[in-house]
């Protein structure tokens, strides 16, 4: 739990027609090779945000190696479900699978627990868009908007004030970027420090579409929302 509270924050917000996930990258630098993350979407693996299945995207906070192991397990679980039931794994079922694994590590074997908190953003035909949070104990709960990692307390209270039940996708993106800019360590938002993903429904096929933004797309999005969001924030509160 300590490791998680020092890790880069991950923020998720549920809207009527989609979910937004954003994460602060802690491992950056000029020498870091980012070419792998140039392909977002399918085969998406960033540092913080991963695609678990075509209908579920997850953000991780905590010990990176543990997180990678859990993501791999989750991906296998999703495919096992597809193999048996010929349907995309329901989001809550996937969260439960991971939590059952995590709980096992707290009870059997004398092994240490996974030091990771995850936010699962997903869609299934039963409950539409859902956002879940799970912690190392194997506990999970559903949220409309939540945050894990560093400064999650501040972010959580900000979300509590600003979140509205009927928020649109654009409103959610806007809210996420505003809260991230407030809670992130660096002064301005940029694609080097930010990972961003959305999960929406394709209007024609009605299938879930997961999109992990590429660095160039993140920059374009920030430009559209106005990178200098910080100046306006002080007036917003009144």
């Amino acid at each position, binding site marked *: 739990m300590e490791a998680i509270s020092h890790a880069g924050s991950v923020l998720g917000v549920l809207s009527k027609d989609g979910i937004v996930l954003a994460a602060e990258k802690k491992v950056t630098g000029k020498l870091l090779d980012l070419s792998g993350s140039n392909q977002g979407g399918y085969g998406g693996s960033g540092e913080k945000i991963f695609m678990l299945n075509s209908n579920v995207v997850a953000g991780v906070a905590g010990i990176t190696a543990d997180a990678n192991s859990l993501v791999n397990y989750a991906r296998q679980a999703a495919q096992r479900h597809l193999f048996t*039931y010929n349907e995309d794994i329901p989001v*809550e079922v996937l969260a439960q699978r991971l939590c059952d694994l995590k709980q096992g590590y707290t009870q059997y074997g004398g092994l240490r627990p996974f030091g990771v908190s995850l936010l699962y953003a997903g869609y299934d*035909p039963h409950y539409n868009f859902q956002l879940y949070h799970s912690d190392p104990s194997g506990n999970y709960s559903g949220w409309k908007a939540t945050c894990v990692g560093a400064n999650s307390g501040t972010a959580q209270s900000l979300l509590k004030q600003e979140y509205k039940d009927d928020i649109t996708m654009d409103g959610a993106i806007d809210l996420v970027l505003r809260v991230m800019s407030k809670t992130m360590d660096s002064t301005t938002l940029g694609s080097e420090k930010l990972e961003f993903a959305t999960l929406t429904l394709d209007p024609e096929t009605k299938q879930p579409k997961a999109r992990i933004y590429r660095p160039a797309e993140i920059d374009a999005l920030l430009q559209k929302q106005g990178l200098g969001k910080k100046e306006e924030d002080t007036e917003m509160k009144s």
Partner: protein
Amino acid sequence: MEVSFAMTGKGYVLLAADTTAVHSIIKVKTDVDKIKELSPHLLMAYSGEPGAVVSRDTVQFAEYVERNIRLYQIRHTYPLRPPSAASWIRRSLAESLRSRNPYSVNLLLGGYDTSTYTPHLYWMDYLGTLVEVPFAAHGYGSYFALSLLDRYHDPEATVEEGLAVLRRCLDEVSKRLVVSPGKYKVKIVDKDGIREVEL
């Protein structure tokens, strides 16, 4: 011989199965219910191989499926949708096929998907074949029923019209099959759930 029929209609699936349990030349029981209710909107009619000696397999497998579908529903708070349930059942049959003692049971799975508001009917055999069909039948009776259903089935039919077509099939089987079953159990599943129908 064990026989079962099924057809889809406007917002419903109709299933019928005979009610006899046979040992060599004797009808041991004449009011067996061979249509299991797997979940509030899922029905499964099971039967043995035509010509084969009656096996315990059919009931064993049917109950195994029923209990597992129910377990899924209890664990995950919502029932399996018909397409997913069909895939799971097919997977179980396919795995049993290459085991020491394969299950020898043929199934008709009828369900109403409450999230898309559509009826679904699946024909499954002991080899793990799965097809979604507008109407189906198992057993010797299928030789008569399928041609009748080819001619008279209407996917947009009302319940009464569907029952009329079913009556045609049952009458033909009584008329032409040497060992025709006397009584049938008829069940229907629609948006309101499962109910039994008197023919």
